């Protein structure tokens, strides 16, 4: 009997029969998340209905040494929810109750499966919203956002998930349940909450989150500016930020991305544009009005040939539709594509885009660019056809080169999608072995047996209990009689 069979047998009777999925065809439907290039059929799927279910599963996993992977909506783009073939996939999408909305305290308490946008929908009647807004906000879950520290177009001004979570209930990998943080700010003790947010499911499973609600702005103005080149659009971005303006969002798309979006959703962006910027300003009406003129002037000066301003919510939605559909739209112009998520200092934008273009030309691979220009978070879409021999390899090689390029300029391999299974191998390019070893001290504290989402984030697991560089007295091998004095 394998460990997973044993676990399955012991879960029966403790969970609803319908919650324990062993059927292979049904398990297979969970074989990947939003990054379909990686697929593993999970050993077992459990649909958790409450925190007790999660605790039951994790306690048994701990007892039997079975790995587990948590999954929300499965929209992640780094393979963070890629299942383990000998492990349990704990699906949290059934836990989607909003437990409390308290506008006076500016917070909401939600279960992990609650969809991001649903928090905003629940808060909207009170004049509030939930600020982090990944492009997938209609379908992605808060639990997944917490795991990945998700951003979104508006994090330039409002920050990431980590800035908007006050407290969470965590089932640790040993099956114990703990509350991290308090519903008031600045909980005393180590900021374990800030450590768990963005840890990509490697430190346990969050079963409830208390999130901050943000007051809806008095005014929102959205501009669409067409430019001849990404250089011009980049110049406009730099001069807006340089002038001390912090828009809610500045998004850029290049010609190929615009072409794809037009094909898919007919967003009617300026004809012939080599790049567009979507710029959103929000806040008190008087401030937004003042900044709007300034932003238009910066775009003009940088050579924008057409600036449109959304007259109402419908027009604003149309402008955003082109941007938010861009990833999927690329599917219209290419059978396959890789989405990268590198970050660069904003000042390196022009240099990086040029070099990326050169690299793409050298490799004979097309790259469409859609990105958060305001904070330097690039999303190059590397296009290829998996059916054509050699194209997959060429696209993957180019993707790696693009990440290396981001690091050369002092950036990061991932701004919001997470490291996951996809980029663990690139962590050594960004961090030293000591950096990674130190991060994994946290892992050893929470999960010394590496049962929680193993194989993600870190290229090489640390042996917990081993303390390189700080042996006192005799070397352990010598103590054990296995070696002479060195």
């Amino acid at each position: 009997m394998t460990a997973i069979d044993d676990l399955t047998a012991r879960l029966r009777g403790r969970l609803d029969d319908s919650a324990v999925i062993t059927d292979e065809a049904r398990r297979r439907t969970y074989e990947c998340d939003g990054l379909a290039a990686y697929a593993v059929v999970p050993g077992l799927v459990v649909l958790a209905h409450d925190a007790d279910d999660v605790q039951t599963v994790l306690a048994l996993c701990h007892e039997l040494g079975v790995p587990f992977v948590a999954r929300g909506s499965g929209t992640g783009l780094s393979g963070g929810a890629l299942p383990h073939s000998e492990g349990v996939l704990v699906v949290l999408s059934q836990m989607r109750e909003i437990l409390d909305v308290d506008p006076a305290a500016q917070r909401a308490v939600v279960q992990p499966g609650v969809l991001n946008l649903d928090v905003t929908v629940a808060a909207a009647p009170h004049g509030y919203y939930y600020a982090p807004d990944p492009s997938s906000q209609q379908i992605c879950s808060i639990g997944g956002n917490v795991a990945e520290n998700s951003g979104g177009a508006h994090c330039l001004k409002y920050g990431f998930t980590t800035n908007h979570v006050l407290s969470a209930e965590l089932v640790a990998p040993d099956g114990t349940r703990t509350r991290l943080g308090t519903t008031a700010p600045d909980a005393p003790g180590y900021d374990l909450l800030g450590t768990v947010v963005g840890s990509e499911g490697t430190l346990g499973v969050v079963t409830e989150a208390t999130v901050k609600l943000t007051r809806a702005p008095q005014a929102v103005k959205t501009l669409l500016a067409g430019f001849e080149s990404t250089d011009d659009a980049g110049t406009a971005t730099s001069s807006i930020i340089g002038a001390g303006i912090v828009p809610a969002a500045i998004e850029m798309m290049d010609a190929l991305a615009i072409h794809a979006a037009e094909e898919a959703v007919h967003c009617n962006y300026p004809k012939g544009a080599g790049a567009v910027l979507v710029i959103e300003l929000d806040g008190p009406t008087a401030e937004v009005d003042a900044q709007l003129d300034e932003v238009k002037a910066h775009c003009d000066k940088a050579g924008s040939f057409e600036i449109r301003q959304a007259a109402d919510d419908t027009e604003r939605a149309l402008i955003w539709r082109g941007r938010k559909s861009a990833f999927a739209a690329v599917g219209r112009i290419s059978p396959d594509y890789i989405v990268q998520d590198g970050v660069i200092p904003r000042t390196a934008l022009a240099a990086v885009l040029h070099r990326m273009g050169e690299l793409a030309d050298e490799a004979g691979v097309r790259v469409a660019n859609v990105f958060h220009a305001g904070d330097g978070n690039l999303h190059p879409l590397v296009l290829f056809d998996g059916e054509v021999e050699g194209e997959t390899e060429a696209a993957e090689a180019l993707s790696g080169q693009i990440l290396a390029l981001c690091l050369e300029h002092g950036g990061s391999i991932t701004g919001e999608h997470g490291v996951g299974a996809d980029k663990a191998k690139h962590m050594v390019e960004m961090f030293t072995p000591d950096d990674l070893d130190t991060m994994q001290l946290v892992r050893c504290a929470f999960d010394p047996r590496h049962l929680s989402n193993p194989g993600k984030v870190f290229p090489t697991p640390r042996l917990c209990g081993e303390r390189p560089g700080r042996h006192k007295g005799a070397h352990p091998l010598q103590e054990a009689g296995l070696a002479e004095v060195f």
Partner: protein
Amino acid sequence: MVGTTHASGAVLDDLAGSVGGNAREATPGDAVAGVPAGVVASPATTEEASALLVLAARLGLTVVARGRGTVLGWGPPPRSADLVVDTSRLDGIVEHEAGDLVCTAEAGTRIDDVNAQVAGAGQQLALDQPVPGASLGGTLSTGRSGPRRMLYGTPRDLVVGITMVRADGVVAKAGGKVVKNVAGYDLAKLLGGAYGTLGIVTRMVVRLHPLPPSSRWLTCSYPDLDAAAGAAAAVTGSQLFPTAVEVRRSAGAAGADVQVLLEGTERGVRERAAAAAELLGDDAGEADLDTADVARLDGPSDAGLLVKVAVPLTGIARLLHTTREIEDRLGLSCGVVGSAGVGVLHVQLADVTGETSAAVQAVELLRNTARQTSGAGSAVVLHAPAEVRAHVDSWGPITGLDLMRRVKDEFDPDHRLSAGRFVGGI
């Protein structure tokens, strides 16, 4: 060596050797929260700090990190302090790329010095200083904040990368120099507010913000506490996007004041100030206040008590009442000031000499208030005379303490870093 206070000449020589001769025997002025120190060593680079900690590990020395020493007396005393690692020579800005709105600086750099330099580019590091003269590292390690946290956040929100030295001397980095970055664990969060118990921060990358072209403070006094809390809540819940909403009840006062900071364009601030004044009431008026002055905590005296209280936004009124209850019931002088817009305030009790039992009861009252208002808050004793410290749990109830102990055991298995200063005796 643990527990001793006088370093032997050989130890001092060794320690000095690792930091280019910049070590000396401690003086009474180097005591940490009343605990005498052995040696003070001042590394000038991360490498020196690493060499120093390797040596301290080999010698089994207890270690306390010190920034500019502005609040070294905050928190419980360490069990011992063989070695004080003074970071004041880890000083200066390493890189300021104005277009990226980030700045890399050594951890001992004063916030004021960062601001003096980046102001030339029209930028600021928007961290308030309850006690002026603070370093970057000290501010992160004690999680200090002030009025403007309502808009800009706290050190945890503004630090995007750190370099740290572990108890065993290993140097590690986390984060980076771009604001948006989710690669790896966020160790800056973990070391933030950890009072130096997990490692010594030697370098930081911080996020900057543009200096606002215009700013205005409004104030309004209220004869009763509920009216003050109500006015603060009205501005906090408005669409005026205030940078700060402060409430201040002076010791002995029946009522309280509310202060609001608005920042932005000239015209925008003028219009928003008018709207905010309407929410505050008839007596609202503009005040010529310096934000640094509003942020500064005056006191407490050595004989006084300073308690940081965090409550949900709906708990402000109750906290104000509790400070008056402390005066009425316990006969102590008790004032409070802080962010009503966020729910983090500082309560100050003047001289509690000879009033230990009343002081302990006051902390309990504050703690009950913090914990009973629609969800858990906290009341942390930052400063207290030794006789009060001995009778009060400085940190109060902690959730997740077991995991915290495990983290401490991994980072500092011999418990040599600021041992005893943190929650649960960590």
